[in-house]
């Protein structure tokens, strides 16, 4: 392969993210990492499920969870998943501007999600006195949801760094895999959230 990694509409490979060996490696590496993350979150979910009734006299999930906010958060995150799909669509069509536009929207939605989550925690702590130390349930709840939130923060930082770095240089075979792996990671965060809203909030509300 030549040293020139740049990409123009004429010579665009079908899958720019996997066109180079480095790209293919990154692609697989991230997928494998997600396999490990599955177990990581499973351990957290398992811990949460084991401790979800251990409220030690403090508030239970049924007492405090409010569905409206969670619904809003879910919509934000699901939509951000779609917008990152759009971004990848434009990457395949080699339309860098549109790709960045959709990624920008993704970041925006992600930040919205995060803001809601921070508000939610704040609300539990101040209005219900429900903290990380209240009970085993509290510890497990904040740890599980917090780990997810941490992943969102990390994903956002990654995305912003990528966008800032590449704003002026456009798409090429060197950075295409980076964008693509980010999108995979972002979808995975969404996957985890689907289980969180189901297992923690909805099942918590049902009792």
């Amino acid at each position: 392969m030549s040293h020139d990694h740049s990409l123009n509409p004429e010579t665009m490979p079908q899958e720019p993210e996997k066109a180079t060996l480095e790209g293919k490696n990154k692609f697989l590496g991230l997928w494998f990492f997600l396999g490990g993350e599955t177990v990581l979150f499973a351990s957290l979910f398992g811990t949460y499920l084991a401790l979800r009734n251990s409220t030690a006299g403090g508030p239970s999930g049924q007492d405090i969870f409010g569905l409206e906010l969670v619904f809003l958060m879910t919509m934000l995150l699901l939509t951000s998943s779609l917008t990152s799909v759009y971004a990848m669509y434009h990457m395949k069509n080699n339309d860098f501007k549109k790709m960045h536009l959709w990624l920008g929207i993704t970041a925006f939605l992600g930040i919205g999600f995060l803001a809601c989550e921070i508000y939610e925690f704040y609300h539990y702590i101040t209005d219900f006195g429900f903290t990380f130390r209240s009970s085993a349930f509290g510890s497990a709840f904040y740890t599980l949801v917090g780990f997810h939130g941490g992943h969102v923060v990390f994903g956002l930082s990654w995305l912003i760094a990528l966008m800032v770095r590449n704003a002026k240089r456009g798409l090429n075979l060197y950075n295409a895999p980076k964008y693509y792996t980010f999108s995979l990671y972002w979808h995975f965060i969404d996957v985890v959230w689907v289980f969180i809203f189901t297992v923690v909030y909805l099942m918590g509300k049902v009792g």
Partner: protein
Amino acid sequence: MSIAAAQKKGFGAFLWDYLTTVDHKKIAHLYLIGGGFFFILGGLEAMFIRIQLIAPENDFISAGLYNEMFTMHGTTMIFLAAMPLLLGLMNAVMPLQIGARDVAFPFLNSLGFWLFMFGGILLNCSWFLGGAPDSGWTAYTPLSVESPTHGIDFYVLGLQISGAGTLIGGINFLVTIVTMRAPGMTYMRMPLFSWTTFVTSTLILFAFPALTVGLFLLMFDRMFGSAFFNVALGGNSVIWQHLFWIFGHPEVYILILPAFGVFSEVIPTFSKKRLFGYTAMVFATILIAFLGFMVWAHHMFTVGLGPVANAIFAIATMAIAVPTGIKIFNWLATMWGGSITINSAMLWALGFIPSFTIGGMTGVMLASAVADYQYHDSYFVVAHFHYVIVGGVVFGIFAGLHYWWPKMFGRILNEKLGKIGFWLFFIGFHLTFFIQHFLGLMGMPRRYWVFLEDQGLDTGNFISTIGTFLMAIAATIFLINIIYTAVKGEKPAGDPYDGRTLEWAIPSPPPYYNFKQLPLVRGLDPLWIEKMDGKDKMTPAEPLGDVHMPNGSILPFAMSLGFFVAGFGFIYQTDHQAWNLAIFVGMGIALGSMLIRSLKDDHGYHISKEELEREAD
């Protein structure tokens, strides 16, 4: 960097070279040095243990120190000695075996090593800072939550950091094997050591996250007042046990499978026969890994999980005897009808077979739940796992080191010293651990600082301690051998053992780009096939061309250093707010390095065709 730069340099440059290297062969050296250092440390701890137990009611070391001793012995040996030594062998050999120029992520490879190293150093700093962890390598809660010194905090952060390194290493190997095999190297032509590397990496990928979570929970309980294991607030200490063993049992197969891989290389080579039942060996490896995830509760038979769980896990555990048996018998069948050369590498492999079989068999005995009510937490268990770990893993490491030493360092280890060392170690090993089966059954629990007088345990313990000294002498002889070899060792040809796999097709030690031209693989044991066709070299699969190489980088070192510093911050912030500063500084260094890495493009460099042509073969 060009080839000319690889000439003799000053010590500073040499050190800088190793600090920044991303070459898998040099990283392998680093792993071997790091792992070897911790092996000696763990071995010395073992000697303290055994000296304390040489006589009843001995007071060579105090009760608290004894607990620290075996905790650190177990932790060090498993996480900081055995695993890194195996990762070292994998790094040195696997890319060569599959005909690759490097691993998939050279940068991450280096990061993995430095994280391990700094994690290990962090853990061992506890010795000098108020006390090492003292709740066993299993750190069962709530004992570990209540442990008053910072020891457990060092345990948590040390393992967290080095565990991250291991995980990175695992993913790296997986991707390397998937994408970077030489042309013609199908999965079913891959040497068994590469196969076991692959399967082991999968185990790492799925097992370590459970430990990560467990360590986080423990850390939160100890440092931030959460209540996972606090019974008063509804916590449950058995969660820790599950998380630990969901990791812990696969971990023991993470240790043994690469050793199986080593034997699957050594035995065919020195029997001059291809591995008997190759396909079965591959599937047995996968089956062991698969079953390995479904048996963890055999460490918890006495926890009170109830008869249903105990029965299920007992049967699942016993099932592992079957694929392991397939392996043992295939090795025997490989030797059968062969032409066996017994040198020191082969001796370790031959010593392994009966020793490991005993250990595996006592494993199956342990799996019989009701019998385990007697064995559990007694010296019978200690005997079992040293038989599999020392008789399997440590023997495997020694076999691998003797076998690949010429490939890695360009010198052949001295045979005479090798053989003396083997026999001393072998005798010492059985002397130390065989008697422990009976000690356990005679009523000696493990993790006992003293055993009492007049309980019939004196002779057994005495013999056991004597054996340890033989092992220590043997280990020292091996160290002498290394030094002797470095000074006077004989320089090997590329293929000193009439080898069968690709690593023997290139010079010893290999040039930093490994293969000038990627070889064309025509079957299992590719080099052997070519030799049988009367050629002494692999057929190249590509014309000579430019070779792309990654640049070295100090960032992995810096990043790991950052986490190391932050680790201290986390540990001591419970004492004083000011330590939060260390967290910020450390994380700043680490995240800053990450940012530099992602913002600065690094395209590597190329060795030109002309330069390659100038190089002799």
